[in-house]
């Protein structure tokens, strides 16, 4: 085990230890629990920084360590740690966002009676996510994959007394679990065929080992099914908007930056495997783009700030997946990195707003007024929005350009145009939100609110704003690492590529124009006005109906569950009760009873019946003897 891997192991298990400590010792004390959890993730963060410092130019040689978990006849099931640029980068994101969310939550969750539990679950999540990130084998990836799902369930359902939260938690878990069915089957097939396969071998399957391409297509599609669930791709995306019922820091951490990105990470990790099947790649690209468009359109009509962000997350995830499917490995990973920062930022800002206004609805926030007074929140929110929309020089700009470039380079112009549309829509709905929030305060309400609620007009506490600022810094600057101005650092780090890619000015200009159009259009419709208004998408009735109803996907699921699964279960239950139990089991019991009753005709109390039966049986026995 190399030095690096030892550090990785330490980083992974630090949150786990925190989980155990909180569960066993400090669950009674909120402060202590929070302290332990933050300390643990801080340790991980520090280790990650140390690792990063030691491998500033990327990890040249992938380092892997295995230990045996189980041994059966086919193979040994091994767990272990992997250390390379990809995992280091992801670890950095996970630890960084997680740390900030931990800190942010002190303020956000202030006074919640389940704080210790909250931190325990956060630790659980961090641990599970890190396990996933450093997994060298598909099995361990699945292990972590499921655990983050469970952590997500627990955190979405953190306020379980809210029925919506409870329902959302269940929905999230079941839906991702449905995807995981595919993942699990794919994993099982791979396990059975190749033993406990690690990613290195997996990536070589198509090339060196000469495996049947259709086999790879089938398994990769199955695994992609899991990714669709976890990364909320159409049609398994429906859980993610609902998951916003959880505490906002959780949304920021899990449902924006890390867990939902796990699918993208997995594709990146097993890129060789996926790319060995052209059909899968095509499929991934199409599904991703479709998701992206669908989510972006739905986001147009959302009024809940978190929902807007949730759909934008789905949309961005779709982009990443699509570009990975389209062959843009670097672009996908890069967007994953940048997106993690600005989306986490956006969510935390939203959290700050929600914390402040006690509502999720952007119109209500606007009505209550005082957004402008929350200087830091507002600033960072706008920075995040710009980054999301992809305005130069914010992070999103570079990564989105990379995506378009990747599509163009791979000869998928259609996708490139689709990205343009998405980025127009993104810019539009993001700034729709900003402009609504910035809308002038209605005078009548302002007076009333002022007297009613004193703390209006102040920003959130420092433990909430500092994470915002830190993330904002990243959201502004992190995009530059892929530019020639920083020597193509990201390429070097991730791919070890030495030559510097030049800038694609054409694409940059095109996309900037599109984004500015989107922002402008948003301003045209929402800027500087008071009161509720309708955007362009809401003007047409049937489109609005479709979008408000989220393309009826939820209704479809409702129909499937209520109309198919539960009736099916009821019918089975009926069969079980009536046919198997009452007829089969009770029936055979009754058979005994009734045959006893039937036989009692022999015992009807008449002497001659007794005698006659006796003789008859005796003679029957004699005949029986002659038969035998």
């Amino acid at each position, binding site marked *: 085990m190399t030095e690096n891997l030892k550090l990785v192991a330490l980083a992974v298990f630090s949150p786990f230890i925190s989980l155990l400590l909180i569960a066993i010792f400090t669950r009674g004390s909120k402060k202590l629990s929070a302290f332990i959890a933050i300390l643990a993730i801080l340790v991980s963060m520090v280790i990650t920084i140390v690792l990063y410092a030691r491998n500033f130019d990327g990890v040249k040689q992938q380092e892997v360590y295995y230990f*045996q*978990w*189980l*041994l*059966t*006849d*086919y193979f040994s*099931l091994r767990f272990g740690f992997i250390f390379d640029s990809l995992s280091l980068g992801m670890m950095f994101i996970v630890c960084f966002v997680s740390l900030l969310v931990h800190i942010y939550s002190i303020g956000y969750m202030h006074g919640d009676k389940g704080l210790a539990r909250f931190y325990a679950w956060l630790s659980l999540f961090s641990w599970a996510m890190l396990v996933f990130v450093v997994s060298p084998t598909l099995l361990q990836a*699945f*292990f*972590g994959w*499921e*655990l983050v799902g*469970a952590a997500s*369930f627990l955190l979405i*359902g953190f306020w*379980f*007394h*809210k*029925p919506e*939260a*409870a*329902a959302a*938690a*269940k929905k999230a*878990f*079941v839906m991702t*679990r*449905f995807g*995981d*069915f595919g993942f*699990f*089957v794919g994993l*099982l*097939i791979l*396990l*059975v065929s190749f033993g406990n396969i690690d990613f290195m071998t997996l990536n070589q399957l198509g090339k060196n080992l000469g495996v049947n391409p259709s086999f790879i297509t089938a398994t990769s599609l199955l695994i992609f099914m899991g990714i669709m669930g976890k990364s909320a791709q159409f049609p398994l995306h429906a859980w993610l908007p609902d998951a916003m019922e959880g505490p906002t820091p959780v949304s920021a951490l899990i449902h924006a930056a890390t867990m939902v990105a796990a699918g993208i990470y997995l594709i990146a990790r097993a890129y060789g495997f996926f790319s060995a099947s052209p059909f899968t790649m095509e499929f991934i690209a199409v599904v991703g783009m479709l998701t992206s468009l669908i989510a972006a359109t739905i986001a147009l009509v959302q009024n809940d700030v978190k929902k807007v962000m949730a759909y934008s997350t789905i949309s961005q995830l779709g982009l990443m997946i699509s570009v990975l499917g389209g062959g843009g490995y670097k672009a996908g990973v890069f967007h994953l990195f940048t997106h993690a920062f600005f989306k986490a930022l956006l969510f935390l800002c939203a959290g700050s707003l929600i914390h402040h206004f006690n509502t999720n609805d952007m119109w209500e926030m606007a009505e209550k007024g005082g957004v402008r007074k929350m200087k830091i929140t507002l600033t960072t929110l706008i920075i995040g929005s710009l980054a999301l929309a992809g305005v130069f020089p914010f992070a999103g700009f570079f990564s989105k350009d990379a995506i378009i470039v990747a599509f163009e380079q791979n000869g998928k112009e259609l996708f490139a145009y689709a990205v343009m549309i998405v980025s127009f829509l993104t810019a539009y709905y993001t700034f729709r939100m900003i402009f609504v929030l910035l809308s002038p305060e209605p005078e009548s309400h302002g007076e009333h609110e002022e007297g009613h609620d004193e703390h209006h007009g102040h920003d959130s506490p420092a433990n909430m704003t500092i994470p915002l600022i830190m993330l904002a810094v990243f959201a502004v600057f992190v995009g530059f690492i892929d530019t020639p101005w920083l020597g193509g650092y990201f390429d070097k780090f991730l791919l070890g590529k030495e030559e510097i890619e030049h800038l694609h000015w054409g694409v940059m200009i095109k996309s900037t124009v599109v984004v500015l159009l989107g922002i402008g259009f948003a301003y045209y419709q929402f800027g500087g006005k008071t009161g509720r208004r309708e955007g362009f998408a809401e003007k047409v009735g049937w489109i609005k109906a479709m979008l408000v109803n989220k393309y009826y996907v939820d209704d479809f699921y409702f129909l499937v569950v209520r109309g198919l*699964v*539960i009736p*099916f*279960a*009821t019918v*089975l*239950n009926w069969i*079980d009760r009536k046919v*198997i*139990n009452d007829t*089969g*089991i*009770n029936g055979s*019991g009754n058979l005994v009873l009734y045959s006893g009753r039937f036989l009692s005709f022999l015992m009807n109390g008449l002497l001659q019946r007794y005698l006659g039966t006796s003789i008859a049986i005796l003679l029957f026995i004699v005949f029986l003897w002659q038969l035998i």
Partner: protein
Amino acid sequence: MAFPILSFILIVPTITVLLILFCKPEQKTAIRVISLIGTGITLLLALMVFIQYDRTKYGIQFMEFIPWVPKWGINYILGVDGLSVPLVLLNAIAIFTGVMVSWHIEDRVKEFYGFLIFLATGVFGVFMTQDLFFFALFYEVAVLPMYLLIAIWGSGKNREYAAFKLTLVLFFGSAFVMGGILYLYKAAGLNTFNLMELKRLAQYPRTVQSILFLLFFIGFGSIVPSFPLHTWSPEGHACAPSAVSMLHAGVLMKLGGYGLLRIAIPLLPEGLRDWALVMMGLSMCNIVYGAFTAIAQDDMKFMVGFSSVSHMGMVLFGISTMTLTGLNGAAFQMFAHGLVTALYFSSIGGMYNKTHTRMISELGGIANIMPRAAFFFALAGMAGLGLPGFAPFVAELLVFIAGVKKYTIFGIIAVISVVVTAFYILRCVQRTYFGRTNPKWEGLTDITNFDVIPLVILVIALFIFGMYPSLVLDLLQSETKNLAAKLGTL
């Protein structure tokens, strides 16, 4: 002669039962404490066995051999091997926690603990004996107290019906087991019930193996429970008091799988080969059908009962693959499922003691007033739906691997149950524990610290064996390897 630790595992509970018999019915606390001490000592002994078992040699250890009825080839043989050590431990955990869980019972305490511990003694006997006569002797010991325990201390208006059904179906099965054992004895022609001898020397012709395996399959299948004979199980669970449900699902149902692994497969490998497809088909019914049926249940214990049906189907499925991995999975599933269901039932029982209903539709928001009970149920649910990190995941993984390898399509169908399980467990968690609290339940208090102890023990066990399954799996594997070798799939 060394310290006869296995005999003491039988003797200590027996003495406990006797002591309880001589207590006055009014001395409830004394009875409880005696039970706790007795089962505690048993647990310690079982742990000692678990720890002292020599993992470098494997095979049957701690053997005690006393000729019993020499003319009939009956010997008092106790000995544990890799297969039985974990199950002995499981049983010890289940009875110890069961005693703690039933602390609240006030009605006829003396008889309750007497029967409960008597039952556990029988199960210990089954797991430890290496003689078929004693196997048969202990096999049914476990069933009968169950009848009284369910019928007297159970809940629900058709508890008697459930108790009868359970008893009769299990006896129905055991009739086949007894017949099978006797025929094993006869067909071997060695004039011995010594299982080790039979394993070593007995040769059964193919047709005999086939017939006998069918007998054992029906017999042990009824207690596993296999598909058409499963209906006793959910009802039995639902009507039994918590501790009994724990023992019932946690241990009693394992007797079937254990019997198959201990007797039927090593002696009748050809028989398994003949019947594997049938077994697979029935286990498929168990797994998928059980899981779907669980969705439709309103009574939580019924739901868990059907989930048991589904999960015990995995045991059969694993066995039907006839591979080392499958057998490992089956054996491990027995162990893991025992812990999970014990956890389920003890947490449900904790809640039920307060609410006196288990109907999902009547409950709601219980987590607000009983966070601990809710937490442990959710944890059990998580473990039950195969979350990595808990023991059942390992078992299911192994079974599925073997299943997919052997019967690709059916293996995949079995995996569907994973989704369905998640659905009904979480649906139950959502509707029972989450959400707004029904005002009817306001003012109820959470389970006490004392109640939590057994739950914590179970959770720790689940977690340890989930994270580090080799602790048990290596033991199981030492035996399943032999089975696989007999089946010719090693």
